[in-house]
């Protein structure tokens, strides 16, 4: 253990190293401050914990299995375990966060929920918990994404949510996030904003990471049962905003024996001009109220990323991950569209699991670097591929 550890969680000012904070207009201050003052207190309440874990168990279907992938392990000559977040209700890890946040919103006395969504996974997870609690739900989604992700739009509507097209700027995820923030400015009293990843102003990155941390909490327990040890040698996760990764890393962050691998979307190639590899291409700046790495012009205008996977198509990255990158704590790897699609097909045929395209990026790591035969590698299988069938069909001419 030669690294100085213990500095990878948020500090009390809301920063991860130099990243994080709350760079918000004064109009948002009361809302964000209310949340900042209350989130830890509320989460510590036994009644909150009880309700949260009961819903995760009975409604979401947790704990999700930690599955030893025998054929995959054989192919890559190492021991690979898959954390099956794809088996969560609604098909991805996103619901861990929305369950937590809807309970938070209720305790703060809010009766209207807003959210942003790109691919629609977080929108569906938010619409789901709003239906469950009988709370009004408005989801902002870029006009272009609404066209690309029709089935998820239909799901949200069926769940009773109102889907509002974001028509400003580039009409995708970052603009949907802008619109949600503007809605919050205009509705400061009764509304809670359920952010979908470990992004946004403090305390969001920390709060969302804590709700997702159930992933690594379970990994520790399950690995102990299966291998007699709590810590894997490597944890791999894809990073869009970084919520499934934050959850998978959380309980290993301050343990130098666990190597952390973050996988970003290179799109058509990191330097192709069509990429979403934020750590490689981003510079220090401010996006959606957080100081972090983001893709931007020299003049500080935020640029539009590209990835075949809508869930990784975000020009920023959570401040925790910016810090993991800058400090060298985590290994960052970028994976192209083609590599991701190929590994998605590979996993389907080796293990009978069709992953979300976001998740496919994480599996492509095995073609990029080797692992020792006796090492234990956990891959966070963040979501299932049902939502991506059309993209797989088009790509492979199925």
């Amino acid at each position, binding site marked *: 253990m030669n690294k100085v550890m213990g500095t990878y969680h948020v500090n009390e000012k809301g920063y991860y190293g130099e990243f994080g904070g709350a*760079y918000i207009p004064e*109009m948002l201050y009361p809302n964000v401050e209310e949340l900042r003052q209350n989130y830890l207190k509320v989460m510590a309440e036994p009644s909150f914990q009880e309700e949260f874990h009961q819903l995760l168990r009975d409604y979401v279907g947790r704990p999700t299995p930690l599955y030893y992938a025998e054929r995959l392990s054989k192919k890559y000559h190492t021991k690979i375990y898959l954390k099956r977040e794809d088996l969560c209700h609604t098909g991805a890890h996103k619901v861990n966060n929305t369950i937590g946040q809807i309970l938070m919103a209720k305790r703060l006395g809010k009766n209207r929920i807003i959210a942003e969504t790109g691919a629609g996974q977080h929108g569906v997870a938010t619409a789901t918990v709003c239906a469950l609690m009988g709370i009004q739900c408005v989801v902002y989604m870029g006009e272009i994404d609404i066209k690309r992700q029709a089935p998820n739009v239909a799901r949200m509507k069926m769940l009773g949510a109102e889907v509002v097209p974001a028509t*400003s700027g580039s009409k995708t995820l970052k603009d949907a996030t802008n619109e949600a923030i*503007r809605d919050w*400015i205009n509705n400061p009293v009764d509304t809670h904003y359920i952010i979908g990843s470990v992004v946004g102003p403090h305390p969001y990155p920390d709060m969302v990471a804590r709700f997702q941390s159930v992933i690594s909490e379970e990994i520790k327990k399950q690995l102990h049962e299966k291998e007699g040890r709590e810590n894997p040698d490597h944890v791999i996760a894809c990073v869009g905003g970084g919520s499934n990764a934050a959850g998978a890393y959380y309980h290993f962050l301050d343990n130098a024996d666990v190597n952390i691998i973050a996988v970003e979307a290179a799109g058509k190639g990191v330097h192709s001009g069509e990429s979403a590899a934020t750590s490689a291409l981003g510079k220090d*700046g401010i996006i959606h109220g957080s100081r972090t790495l983001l893709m931007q012009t020299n003049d500080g205008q935020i640029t539009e990323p590209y990835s075949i996977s809508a869930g990784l198509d975000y020009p920023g990255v959570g401040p925790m991950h910016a810090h993991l990158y800058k400090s060298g704590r985590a290994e960052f790897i970028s994976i192209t569209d083609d590599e991701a699609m190929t590994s998605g097909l590979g996993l389907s045929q080796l293990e009978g699991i069709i992953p979300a395209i976001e998740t496919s990026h994480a599996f492509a790591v095995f073609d990029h670097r080797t692992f020792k035969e006796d090492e234990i590698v956990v891959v966070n299988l963040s979501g299932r591929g049902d939502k991506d069938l059309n993209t797989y069909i088009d790509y492979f001419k199925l």
Partner: protein
Amino acid sequence: MNRINKKLQEDKKLLSIYFTAGYPNLEDTVPIIESLQDSGVDMIEIGLPFSDPLADGPTIQESSTHALKNGMTTEKLFDQLKNIRNTIDIPLIIMGYFNPMMQYGVEAFCKRCQEIGIDGLIIPDLPVDVYHEEYQDTFEKYGLINVFLITPQTSDERIRFIDSVSGGFIYMVSSASTTGAQSSFGNTQEDYFNRIDAMNLNAPQIVGFGISNSETFNQAIQKAKGAIIGSAFIKYISSNPVENIPQFVEKIRA
């Protein structure tokens, strides 16, 4: 003395106009400023366009997108303004989001502002706390006044803190909203205007957001030192030539 403070000492209610630099045309910046001064406007906020203006409603969003498409950049704006003090003597404030300033370099940005003769900055997403801890010394070194926003939801305690950090005026956001929106003010605003007035703050207050005509302007200046018009001016300039600006200003003052 900073031109903003001098202006605030004048025994009159102030009219300030916001416009987005580079809109409707890239080279409109200087002609608009000159025409506003000739029309008797007291102060001008020059909007530095940003790709993701979180605190702005549709009108300013669209003007920003348009200005960026026209080719507006931080350097371009500074270049357009480099001789502005040959003709303009009213206070000039740059209003913009923090990211473009960070990329330019906060100190370099402030230095350039001073060289040009910019008097102050309004940066909606740079919170007073962060400013106070990290940037206040730099802004002051270059003689810049930073202006902070308050809203009907801002607590008295925080308003007092903002007052203590404010070197010029306080920007009173008329309601909980993004820019634009409103066509008239109701009781909620009256109560808010009265509450702030009764606090006897050191910094004078200027009301902005939702002021669109002489009626809302007159309501806003009952208690406050002045008012700022943004979206309504941008709408006007999008379909009227620069020469007509005096008519717009006259109507507001009516």
